[in-house]
């Protein structure tokens, strides 16, 4: 396949990537400028994408945003994790009991992906978006998984340091040791947010997912945190019992591909 024959497809996927990455709908002129293509080309590419349902126009009819067809693909990928639907009632009960937002974190290669969530019932609560990905080591939900899978942890640290130990890999290794010892990730941030995450482990003891309680405001002190953690552990127990009975619920749709070949293809936001 010659490079020239690809150009049209490449342009389409470049435009699609740009539109997915934009906070706001984008106009034709701006797209053309950003991608350094003639306006006529941008028009043609957008027409193709719109026809296929991958982009749609905003209310003004002049700017473009991600269409239902594209979102369906991302949702379809999340559905390949059987735990997504099954865990929903548990997540909602936990959100109601704690008042805070609860997130089921899965893993795609070296990335944690938000598979499902239940919004907190407090008036102010964290509002994380489904499908968001971030490197495992950069989030509490991801670190809960990393700390409870030795093989994955070793591979991740190699990947992170490019094969060598660095200050970053050593710091992460220390943090993961602490998580392993405590059995959970507990983190508070300067802006008052507080996260707790506990791994979901299969019968082999390895983590395949994690559940995080993401509190929006000052966590209300240690007593509240402890109560929240206890309730979170009950939910994890409940789901682990379910997985022991039906091991296929822990299925990793990408188990057959080495994690280093599975980068979702962009830097985390």
């Amino acid at each position: 396949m010659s490079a020239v024959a690809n150009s049209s497809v490449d342009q389409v996927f470049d435009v699609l990537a740009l539109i997915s990455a934009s906070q706001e709908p984008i106009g034709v002129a701006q797209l053309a400028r950003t991608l350094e293509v003639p306006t006529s080309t941008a028009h043609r590419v957008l027409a193709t994408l719109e026809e296929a349902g991958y982009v749609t126009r905003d209310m003004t009819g002049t700017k473009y945003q991600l269409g239902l067809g594209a979102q369906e693909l991302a949702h379809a990928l999340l559905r390949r994790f059987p735990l997504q639907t099954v865990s929903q009632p548990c997540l909602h009960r936990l959100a109601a009991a704690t008042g805070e937002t609860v997130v089921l974190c899965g893993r795609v290669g070296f990335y944690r992906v938000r598979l499902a969530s239940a919004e907190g019932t407090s008036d102010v609560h964290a509002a994380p978006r489904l499908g968001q990905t971030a490197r495992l080591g950069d989030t509490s939900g991801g670190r809960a998984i990393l700390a409870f899978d030795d093989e994955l942890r070793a591979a991740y640290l190699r990947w992170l340091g490019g094969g060598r130990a660095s200050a970053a890999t050593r710091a992460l290794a220390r943090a993961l040791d602490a998580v392993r010892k405590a059995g959970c990730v507990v983190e508070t941030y300067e802006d008052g947010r507080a996260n707790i995450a506990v791994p979901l482990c299969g019968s082999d003891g390895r983590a395949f997912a994690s559940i995080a309680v993401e509190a929006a405001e000052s966590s209300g002190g240690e007593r509240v945190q402890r109560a929240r953690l206890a309730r979170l552990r009950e939910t994890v127990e409940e789901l682990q019992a379910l997985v022991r009975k039906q091991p296929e619920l822990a299925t990793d749709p990408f188990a057959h591909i080495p994690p280093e070949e599975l980068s979702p293809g962009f830097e985390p936001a």
Partner: protein
Amino acid sequence: MPRPASPPKTRAATNGVPDHRDFGGNRATARVLLILSQFAGSSASHGVSELSRELGMTKNMIHRALKTLTRYGYLVRDETGTRYQLGPGVLQLGRLGLEPLNLPVVAGPYLQRMQEVTDETVSLAVRTGRTVVTIAGLRGRGDIARRVPFGRFVPLHASPASRVILAHLPDEEIDAYIAAGPLERYTSTTLTEPDEIWEEIRRVRAEGYARGRGDHVRGATGAAFPILASDGTPHGSITIAGPESRLPAERLDALLPELLQIAADLNRHTQLYPAEPLIQPQPRR
């Protein structure tokens, strides 16, 4: 940090130069997008022959498209090594995260379409425990129109907006609802006997909508359509209602195919999302 191999950039080749391959290239691209869309369905993986058969494209076309889509990470080979499944690249499409379902916003354009098609009052209702409540709507355009019953609570067994939600609940929940009672009567046509309610549920499930029968407001006509979640349980319902003089049964029958289509389009959107369980917030201790 390792990054996926960048696809070859070829912008310079076409930049500013009228592209005589435009039309052919466009068609090839449309084919690639169509093939990718096949993977949004319920089956986890697809093979070359199967796609070729289903889409009426040559195996060679399919091969080329799959190769391109794999290069972008939109697809990967599955564990058999011969078939393809969605790859992590599609998460790029949810890069900013997928919007949570905001039912009134998502349903807005469909309420409007139903109102435009019928000129009658349309409303959006959701369940709260044993009742259904209207949270959005548009009044019909005629001199005489049904009110949008904003904030009105109606039990699950009375009114089409309620019955269509009841019918899409799991059987055990319906049994529990009927057993707990009371099943209030509003008009002479309100269904209050368990057998009658179950018969109506079977009809609604078979036909895909609930018909107005004046069982909450006397003489009211209309039809209600379910708004379903990914597991088939209801997010809510969308209802068109009119005065009998303007919306007799024959007119409703004639409108039904188009209304069912609008409801199906709305459901394509809402079925991406799991149902939100009903949770009563507990007081903070």
